[in-house]
């Protein structure tokens, strides 16, 4: 059931990303996309510390765990 749930969510999210991929945006139309606050992570320093804190207080999996580290969090 969980797997089904997961697959459904995956399909919805990935199709959103791929189906819309046909739009063409010329380089000179990308001014807004280039702004720093449009970066996928506008505050990378914050993300790193928040990820660490949530990771030590919650049991969810993380996309970014490939980075490793973080320590025991044994408190």
């Amino acid at each position, binding site marked *: 059931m*969980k797997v089904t*749930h*997961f697959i459904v969510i*995956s399909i919805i999210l*990935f199709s*959103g*990303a*791929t189906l*819309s*991929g046909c*739009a*063409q*945006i*010329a*380089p*000179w*139309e*990308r001014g*807004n*996309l*280039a*702004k*720093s*606050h*449009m*970066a*996928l*992570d*506008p*505050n*990378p*320093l*914050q*993300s*790193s*510390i*928040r*990820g*660490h*804190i949530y*990771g*030590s*207080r*919650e*049991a*969810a*999996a*993380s*996309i*970014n*765990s*490939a*980075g*490793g*580290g*973080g*320590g*025991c969090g*044994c*408190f």
Partner: protein
Amino acid sequence: MNAPHSAGLAQHSVDNPESRDSKVSLTSSRKTTLQALTSAALVLPGLLLSPAQGASPSNDSVSFQYNRYQEGKRNLYNVHSNLKPIMVDVVHGSGNFTFYDRVKFSFSYTQDTWSGATPVTTAPLVANGNRPILQDSPQGVITVGASPLVQTQVLLDQNLNPLRLIPEGGKVIDPRTVLILSSASPETRNQANFRLGYEWNEAAVNAGGGFSLENDYKSSYGNISGRLDFNQKLTSLKFGAGYTSSETSAILDPDLLPYVTRTAYANQIERRSGSEILRGDRQDWTANLGLTQVLGKGSLIDTNIGYTHSSGFMENPYKVMTVIFINPDTLNPGSNSSITGDARALLEQRPNIRNQLALSSKYVQHISPVDAALHLNYQFSFDDWGVNAHTFEADWVQPLSHGWTITPRIRYYSQDSADFYQPYLISNQAFRKTAIDASGRQVWVDVNDPNQQFFRNGNDNFFDANGNLVDATELNLRPQLVSFDAAKLPQNFSSDHRLSGFGSLSGGVVLNKRFTKGVELEAAFEYYARASSLKLGGNGQSSFADFDFYVANAAIKVDMEAINSRMNKETGHNHANHDHGPRHAHGAHSVPAGIMFGHMLDNPGELMVGYRFMYSRQAGDMLRGAHQASDLSIVNEGCSDITLCRFTHTEMNMKMHMLDIMYAPTRWLNLMIMPQFMDMDMNLRQLEGRPPPVPGVHEHTGTGGHTTGGVGDTILSSLIKLYEIPGHRLHAGLGISAPTGKVDLKMRRMFQVDGGLFHFDMQLGSGTWDFLPNLTYAGTSDRWYWGAQLYGVKRMERSNESGYRLGDIFQASTWGGYQLSNWLAASVRGIYTFRDRIHGDFNEFNARIGPMDFPANHGGQYWDIGIGVNASVPSGKFSGNHFAFEWVQPLRDDVNGFQLEREGALSATWHYSF
């Protein structure tokens, strides 16, 4: 356990739309006129220098960050606890550099120190697991704290509900559950990451690795990741894989040890000098795949899937499960009689395999009317432990005028409980009972030979397994006891509330200010509330574990690429071989790394950001004055007339990280602010000839080592130029040190004994406002440079909050150096230091175990020699970076009282001025 501390690294694979744009247009510009025009448009300075580049973590930049995590008090219902909640101080530094245009290198370093009260288990409230610690006071007996009690009796009704005895007589059901807290002395963790990447026009690969070290947990890891761009860089595919290997070696809490059942881990426990160390290994394999798609002129979406396979020891070695054992014979359903349960603590048991899948999607929308960006993020994850989790996040990034950006954010999180999570367990068997053999006879054993069994007949005569009568008076016979049957317990169990079902709501704000000079300041605050009732669908059933915390942080980022670009524009020089007029002034004024306040900025408006690391070590002989002291003399004379010394330190290490920010408002005045972060560790040994331990009184031996760490004092200073002619200059410094470092750090309570305040040298600051005057002369001639400095510290208060003040300091040093090449110089320095003894004394309990706990054994006169090298980058894109190292070797110590010999000190500095 595998927290994504390197989320910042994963960032790198996030491509920056603008850099993509410029590259794609540059490479394909020959193909069509349109593309040629496009590239021409994009090379316009305004576009290339847009803020997006400044925000890209792959630019040449360095950053420093400080965080404070502070939890609120846990709800212990009827017990007043003075245990301080968990607090974590984190300092973080990172740098990103580009070599040869396409090779990128980045590193980061994190140090965190935590302390405070942490839950060891949960139990019915009626078990009184948080035992009040009472003390006599003028107001009568008061509660001064609480200590954990994990082995006790619990009254239950026939339906196994916990019962409370009421004063009026009788019993009522009390279904409440409570966390049982235990305090912890400070512990420090260090983590270092590095990463090397190569960029093509439409692809990138990275390889990285690092390690995280703490006393009881070590992990090392490596990872690779990459990115492929398609569709005119409107689409990017990202992928990554990593491996982490971790090792637990946890000293089990000696306070709880006698009461914790750890048979399940008998093979993993090593006994060493009275301690038990639980060891375990763990491996994590991870893989992730992601897709970023530009949807329109102002929107994009990013979707990622991540898989983690973990195996090995995933338990938290400090968490135990309360198991209430009940004798099945006492169960009598339907009756009103109560049952006495035997509450015991067992080390938690988690599965040895965990597979986790996470899926996240982020949508970013530009809000044109206000030029803001809305970031919406949803993540779903599940694993084979039964933890399904949903995270919703929304950030509104709003740029304001004058380089300010404000980002309010909100986050909601909900997770289901792990299959094996239980606040506590009830087991329908006795914890321990007398052994009965197959024919129903009670088994007796000889204490001296437990393998031989004996039985008793109706006449109270004992006979052995062969039926031969034995003389019981010659044997030491006891009934054989058998422990509970572990197979009747669940295979896995944990009462760690982080595996329970709950929800949380948090919100905060990030404030950024970007200065035109390429410096960015960032501050953030977030408040987080965990509530069982916030779980999606409700029914979290763990409200006893609800808590809240806040996180506050401040960061500074220096973007060297932006600075270089700006300076090139200002001076009109070519990027590759520019000549920074103002920077050359510093190369000529090298001072050894160990000298603080040694150089000044010359140009009004100039700014310098620097980092200073200092490490000093004491080890070797104990000294009295300038000579070696025997253990017996320390025992008898090192402490006081009423207290003889029992222990002394064998080594003490101190590390300091200091951020050094300097600004020149005018030619003759510089202003400086220098926050400090400290960590120390100390090991002790017993003195030979010490008085014997008093039976029944526990002593803090400290042989396992103590650590402390966190924010130290903060220095604010001004430097004033007094005299300057070519080749000679003289400047004075007037500074103050603000008492931001703690001086009331305490060791945890053990065996009902108050740990008391840590030794003087293990506290993080002076605790007093201090005056820091200094005078520096520096001279140069051709390739030679020399100088001298007088430096002092005057404590401006009589005592700090712990009742004492550190000694004043006077230091004189003089140095000479030679510029070996245009980037490298070497120096020699002679140093004399006088440090006064400590005045006053602790006004709170301190264990007074050795010479380091007595004010008279501090200070003295010290003579040292320093050997240093200085390096600076004279030209190119990293011009303006200066590095210096100095090793200070003690020549002679003449100490007050009894002190440990010094082994030396290392100073390393980096600074960048612009």
